[in-house]
């Protein structure tokens, strides 16, 4: 699927121009900024980006500056995928009329609020209509731009300003929506999960998404030090730990066929290497209340839910969980 000339080695990546440049106003240790930089490194030619309202829109284009070296449009909160549909359809029309000879890729960027919640309708519609574009979800697991409110992507137990942990509320009481599985259910050519901790895997998946003919969906796990409450130096470490604990397994679904990616496949083959979720949770102060007696049982809930989803995933990948 990927052009064999592309190896995505460190040397090649270094040579590739920066299309999402430094100088943006993201916080120290911002996971989503890393995600965007990497995705833009995977582009194959002329590219148009559309960006829903959210952290990355705000920090990358504080007028009169811009971090983007491609044509870029800021849409409303709910319509990145619909906007991408329009761009792609117009490019097609121009190509049909002979006004455009080159291929132009279209990428829609949106956060978890703009994807799990308010943008889901537009995303589902675009997938159903079959527009040829890549949708990149940078998931920092809450509305960070407005100050850490819970979203459909916020995990169970996390304290946010609208699921505040205290005497009455144990943090968020609902589980994270399985958004990538929802996109696989749309029967689109390419869906993948990726993590900023595994840059080469992320780049290859972004490129596969661009090369897929039809809608592609890339779910990028991108920690946020402000919202998750951890030291800014730990962003990549946390992203890695999310994979190692199977909190956020890496996989791709090509034409709806699930395949585990190497980092998660190692864990599937050697289950003893799967780390307990406790290690991941204890690094983040959004979960600190779970380490007090009152809500201690919730860590078991989290572990159970991770195990359940992981085993489900293994079945989808035709890997039988070992007892």
């Amino acid at each position, binding site marked *: 699927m990927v052009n064999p000339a592309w190896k995505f080695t460190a040397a090649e990546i270094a040579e590739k121009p920066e299309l999402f440049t430094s100088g943006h106003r993201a916080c120290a240790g911002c996971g989503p900024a890393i995600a965007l930089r990497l995705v833009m490194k995977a582009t194959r030619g002329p590219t148009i980006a559309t960006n829903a309202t959210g952290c990355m829109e705000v920090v990358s284009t504080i007028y009169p500056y811009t971090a983007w070296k491609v044509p870029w449009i800021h849409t409303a909160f709910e319509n990145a995928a619909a906007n991408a549909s329009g761009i792609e359809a117009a490019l097609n029309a121009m190509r049909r009329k002979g006004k455009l000879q080159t291929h132009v890729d279209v990428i829609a960027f949106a956060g978890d609020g703009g994807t799990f919640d308010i943008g889901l309708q537009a995303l589902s519609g675009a997938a159903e209509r079959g527009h040829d574009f890549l949708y990149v979800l940078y998931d920092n697991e809450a509305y960070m731009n407005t100050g850490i*409110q819970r979203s459909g992507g916020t995990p169970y137990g996390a304290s946010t300003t*609208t699921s505040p942990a205290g005497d*009455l509320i144990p943090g968020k009481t609902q589980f994270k929506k399985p958004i990538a599985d929802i996109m696989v259910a749309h029967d689109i050519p390419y869906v993948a999960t990726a993590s900023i901790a595994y840059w080469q895997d992320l780049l290859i998946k972004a490129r596969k998404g661009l090369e897929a003919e039809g809608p592609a969906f890339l779910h990028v796990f991108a920690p946020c030090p402000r919202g998750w409450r951890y030291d800014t130096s730990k962003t990549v470490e946390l992203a890695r730990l999310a994979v190692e604990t199977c909190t956020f397994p890496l996989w791709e679904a090509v034409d709806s066929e699930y395949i585990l990616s190497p980092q998660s496949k190692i864990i599937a083959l050697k289950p003893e290497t799967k780390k307990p979720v406790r290690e991941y949770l204890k690094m983040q102060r959004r979960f600190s209340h779970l380490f007090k007696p009152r809500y201690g049982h919730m860590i078991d809930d989290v572990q159970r839910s991770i195990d359940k989803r992981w085993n489900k995933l293994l079945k989808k990948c035709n890997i039988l969980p070992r007892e």
Partner: protein
Amino acid sequence: MAKNNKAVLTGTHFLSGDLACAEGALAAGCRFFGGYPITPATEIAERMARRLPQIGGIYIQMEDEIASIAAVIGASYAGKKAMTATSGPGFSLMQENIGLAVMTEAPLVIVDIMRGGPSTGQPTMPGQQDVMQAKWGSHGDYEIIALAPSSVQEMFDLTIECFNLAETFRVPVMLLADEIIGHMWERVEIPPSNEITIINRKKPVVPPREYHPFQPDDDLVPPMACFGEGYRFHATGLTHDEKGAPKTVSIPEQTKLVKRLCGKIRTNTDTIIQVKEVTLEDADVVVVAYGIASRAALSAVRKARTQGIKAGLLRLITIWPFPEKLVAQIAEQAKAIIVPEMNCGQLVREVERAAKTTPVSLLSKLGEEPHRPSEIVEAMRRM
């Protein structure tokens, strides 16, 4: 925030406008909030997320503003006092459901902390640009009520008033504040709960068999049975008769219903409208202002008086229904009217319409800075 389990936090507080609004809602009896984060209204949702569980209420964060207002309609019909809070982009998304709330006569409160628009605009900057949208945003003919607070105390007081009006008239009521009022911190006095006037919706006095859900009393407002109270009826966004049965092609039913929906507000304007008059008795120049602009206007009027200008202020607390009669009366004696607004001229059109031949001048302001009193005094001199 102190831990407490009281709905009414009687005492003196130092609060932001957004927080005072949340406390006002709780004091008014609001027990449901359907929320979605948006600057500069997020703090209302955050406060409600903490406070409602303390007093047995429900906070639900919805997936967008369309869902938020729809959930609020549901909660209202389920018998609770319910509200949502948003800003421009979210207010735009709510418009269709505002029409549904008007049509089904669901009492509810929508808080719009106005920021600079159009579109995403200036999320952290003040605006008064949603004033016309509040009145005309949904399709069809209808009337709503909108109040404009100009202090943090009023964020508390008028939120209660919004609930009382919503319950009285079975209509969506909007609290139209601007970013400055929402984010400003001031002293707030919260009275003892027994000193707060609370109005609850009228309930049917007839048995279920005789109940016609949209048959109004003399005040044009029908008593409201809620889900689970034993009354079985049909509530719909379609044009309906007094029994709630859809009447999608009947001209008389359409006329009767729409005229009543408008009429229940239009015929009660005298009881709804609240204004504050400052030295209007002998005023040559009258400033008509609301919200943040009215604070500068008050200061300007006082300053002008010391300089020998006969200035007066009409501060609109109620902006919808618009106090037409009152403005017309004032315009008869005044030589000129100035309308400072943080938009390109919205409510000024209503003032012009009411003022007839008296010259009306708009003092428009967009962006970060509110009007300065000196600018308004300058405008008075020019008139």
